[in-house]
């Protein structure tokens, strides 16, 4: 359903993503594993279209020159030059890294802001559905999102992405800064979301251990280049991965 074909991204002359081709099929959970500065966030921002906005802003300022080569297509349509909000309408919704919530609004309002593209009755239904997936958010309804813990903020951030009605959900480092116990819980809900809502998920992470068991396929990224590709199980048992990511 998503095809990234020979994608290259440059910041000035530094290469962030190098001839990367990946593919996501309907109903899959696909993982992108990589350490810091591997190009994960750049890849997510390119697929969601946010990078085009950054590029334009930098251009206006006369700042960093961002260059994108290659093609991205979604549902058989070329979306390489499509603006981010149009991609959201097509069903590609990104949950950005570091728990992107509106810190000055309360939890319920965050969900309401995220429902921009929905009609009112659908919005109410959806909000109830998100409270069902993340019951921990129910007692926090009226609390300002800035006062939530990292785990709660991440649940809210995923909930907000779900409000936008995704068919393909991009999760950028959802486990960043969370305790192992909450990491496990979050992964469980991600699997549940795939199963119940039928959402295809592309998740990028540097904590490979909790992610690898649940993904169907995974790509390993290093300095913007694809180094390994395989099913979750293959990657989990790969000695190099074990050495690099599990510290074994």
């Amino acid at each position, binding site marked *: 359903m998503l095809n990234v074909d020979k994608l290259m991204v440059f910041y000035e002359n530094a290469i962030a993503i190098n001839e990367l081709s990946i593919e996501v099929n309907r109903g899959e959970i696909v993982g992108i594993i990589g350490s810091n500065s591997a190009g994960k966030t750049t890849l997510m921002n390119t697929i*969601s279209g*946010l990078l085009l*906005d950054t590029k334009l*802003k930098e251009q*206006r*300022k006369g700042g960093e020159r961002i260059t994108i080569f290659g093609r991205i297509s979604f549902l058989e349509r070329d979306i390489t030059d499509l*603006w*981010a*909000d149009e991609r*959201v*309408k097509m069903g590609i*919704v*990104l*949950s*950005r890294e570091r728990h*992107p*919530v*509106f*810190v*000055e*609004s309360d939890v319920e*309002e965050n969900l*309401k*802001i*995220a*429902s*921009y*593209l929905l009609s*009112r009755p659908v919005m109410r239904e959806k909000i109830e559905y998100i409270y069902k997936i993340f019951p921990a958010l129910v007692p926090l309804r009226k609390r300002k999102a800035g006062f939530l813990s990292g785990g709660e903020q991440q649940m809210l951030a995923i909930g*907000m*992405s779900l*409000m*936008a009605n995704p068919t393909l959900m991009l999760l950028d480092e959802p486990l960043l800064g969370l305790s192992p116990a909450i990491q496990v819980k979050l992964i469980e809900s991600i699997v549940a979301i795939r199963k119940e809502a039928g959402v295809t998920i592309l998740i990028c992470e540097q904590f490979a251990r909790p992610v690898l068991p649940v993904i169907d396929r995974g790509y390993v990224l290093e300095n913007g280049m694809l180094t390994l590709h395989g099913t979750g199980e293959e990657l989990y048992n790969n000695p190099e991965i074990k050495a690099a990511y599990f510290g074994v």
Partner: protein
Amino acid sequence: MIVYSMLIYGLINSAILALMALGFNLAFGISGVANFAYGAIYIVGGFITWTLISTLNIPYAISAISAIIIMGVFGALIYKFIIKRIRGLVMSEVIATFGISIVLLELLRYVGLIGFKYSLPVFIEGSVEILGAFVDIQRLLIIGLMVLIIIALYLFTHYTKTGLAFRGIAQEEHTSLSLGINPDRIASLSMGIGSALGTFAAIVILPLGTITVDSGYDVLISALSVCIVGGLGSTFGVIIASFIIGYAQTITAMYLAPHWTMLVSLLAILIILAVKPSGLLGHQKELEERV
């Protein structure tokens, strides 16, 4: 006696300042664009209303509403065709909007906007006596309308989809964009609504005097000083600041001399920038306040 009239006229003056500043503040709080054409929009809005009433003989209410709509669309178009290209470059935004302001105001001066005939009629004639002070009904209306506008803004930003999107964009543009909210659309809407609010303020306030070109610059300075003192982008701060500056002006006019009042707002900017540069409520960035 004089204390009572000071209290009442101070309240009216504060309401006038708040009404002037709200539109400027809304556009700045949402889109981050300091609209220096605001004073010009205020005067042009008043002038359009006057033209519709006096030369085309259109009823007051319809003229007022069409002027508000025209200036609202005009504000949105300024964003769409000019500011969109330089968004994020603060200095360019200021130069561009101030340029628009000069063009509009000096054009009005050129076509001859001078004289007492350029004044809008009051809504309701007459005055009432409150605690020994005679107050025009128009001035009382200003207080009521200010309260009404603040309530309407609150409801708009908390209960409508567009209003909620406003609050999203004001907080985090990229997160909003990743949820399908187009920042340019929202920013141009906020400029439009800001300009419409400015025109509304003009139609309510201008009947107290005549429409003059120079008051366009004064309105801009008043709106700016109230917003800077209150904390740019904070609605609650704007209300507090307009009361502080409003009463300070009234007291100065009564006990010192009326020609010192213009200094009050400039002095307020100076003091607040020296003591607390982010403004009275600038540090909190609470969204209820930023609307």
